[in-house]
């Protein structure tokens, strides 16, 4: 399981990598909390690290304009991003699919991976059903999927989607050949559940910021390192995340 840390600038990216992050996710908290950062920031972060450190670019909640989004996706690829995340809220399924397909087309000739993203708390904004992300990913031939949250009021991913539902979505996406990522105000206390769900990538910010504050704090390498180690303990079975838990029955094709 890879650890993705959201960063706003190069200083935070250095802290994240020093603490053991596998992926630095460049975003801009001033734009809807999950918005895009500026191209020079992405370029600076990309140029600071070797290729095995993945640099993802979030486009946040994108407008319902396929051409505009495809151009932004192209921009992220031209900057050398490992992946680019396209997130939807107030977008109907067909429009989201069209945007992702045009984004896919924009990435022709690049190694940059396309990630379809929805928000677990989408219903608060009368938005698209977040569980459609796997179908969207499959039909648009996206490389991966992400489920995040938009509200940053203390509630997190698991306040909106349950373990069993997320596990099924992750397995379905993996079976479709996609990478899977979960994010949304995740903390060390959520690691047991996360490891049971076992996405390929877990994304954090507040949990690794000074004072635990994703907005006023800054990414701290010591906090990243602690979370990395806690994750390792659970992945290797040194901390048993399955103890006392009845595993959900698995869906088996009839």
């Amino acid at each position: 399981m890879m650890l993705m840390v959201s960063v706003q600038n190069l200083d935070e990216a250095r802290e994240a990598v020093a603490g053991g992050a596998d992926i630095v996710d460049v975003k801009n908290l001033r734009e809807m909390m999950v918005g895009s950062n500026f191209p020079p920031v992405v370029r600076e972060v990309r140029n600071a690290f070797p290729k095995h450190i993945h640099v993802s670019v979030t486009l946040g909640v994108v407008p319902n304009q396929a051409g505009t989004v495809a151009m932004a996706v192209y921009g992220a690829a031209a900057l050398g991003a490992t992946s680019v995340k396209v997130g939807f809220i107030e977008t109907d399924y067909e429009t989201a699919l069209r945007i992702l397909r045009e984004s896919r087309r924009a990435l022709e000739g690049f190694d940059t991976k396309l990630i379809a993203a929805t928000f677990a708390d989408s219903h608060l904004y009368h938005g698209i059903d977040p569980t459609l992300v796997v179908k969207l990913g499959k039909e648009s031939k996206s490389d991966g999927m992400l489920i995040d949250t938009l509200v940053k009021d203390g509630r997190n991913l698991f306040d909106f989607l349950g373990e069993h539902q997320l596990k099924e979505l992750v397995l379905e996406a993996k079976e479709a050949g996609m990478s899977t990522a979960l994010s949304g105000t995740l903390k060390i206390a959520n690691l047991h559940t996360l490891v049971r769900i076992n996405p390929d990538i877990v994304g954090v910010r507040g949990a690794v910021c000074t004072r635990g504050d994703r907005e006023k704090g800054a990414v701290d390498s010591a906090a990243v390192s602690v979370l990395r180690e806690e994750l390792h303990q659970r992945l290797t079975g040194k901390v048993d995340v399955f103890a006392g838990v009845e595993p959900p029955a698995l869906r088996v094709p009839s």
Partner: protein
Amino acid sequence: MTSTTVALTVDGTTLTCKGAIAKLETEFTGLPSGSVARVVLGDVPSRIDVRAWALRKGHRVIEDAHRGDVFELLIAKQGRPEPPSGAGAGFGGR
């Protein structure tokens, strides 16, 4: 490990965005029934997931060994899915 002929090896210990199941789906699917894949995994949840994946797809885990820091599974490709043996089947053997 047995002397079974292995048609495909998937190394899930190397950290990549796509895990072992995505690789198995893309590479194992094209092989004929009876083919055997060796899957090397570095963590407990992935081992459980791959066993669950095999069950869902009707494949058979013919070996599941813990060697040092890794788990090595041999999975034989079957022609059709088998029913689960009970609730939570596929999570056993960890």
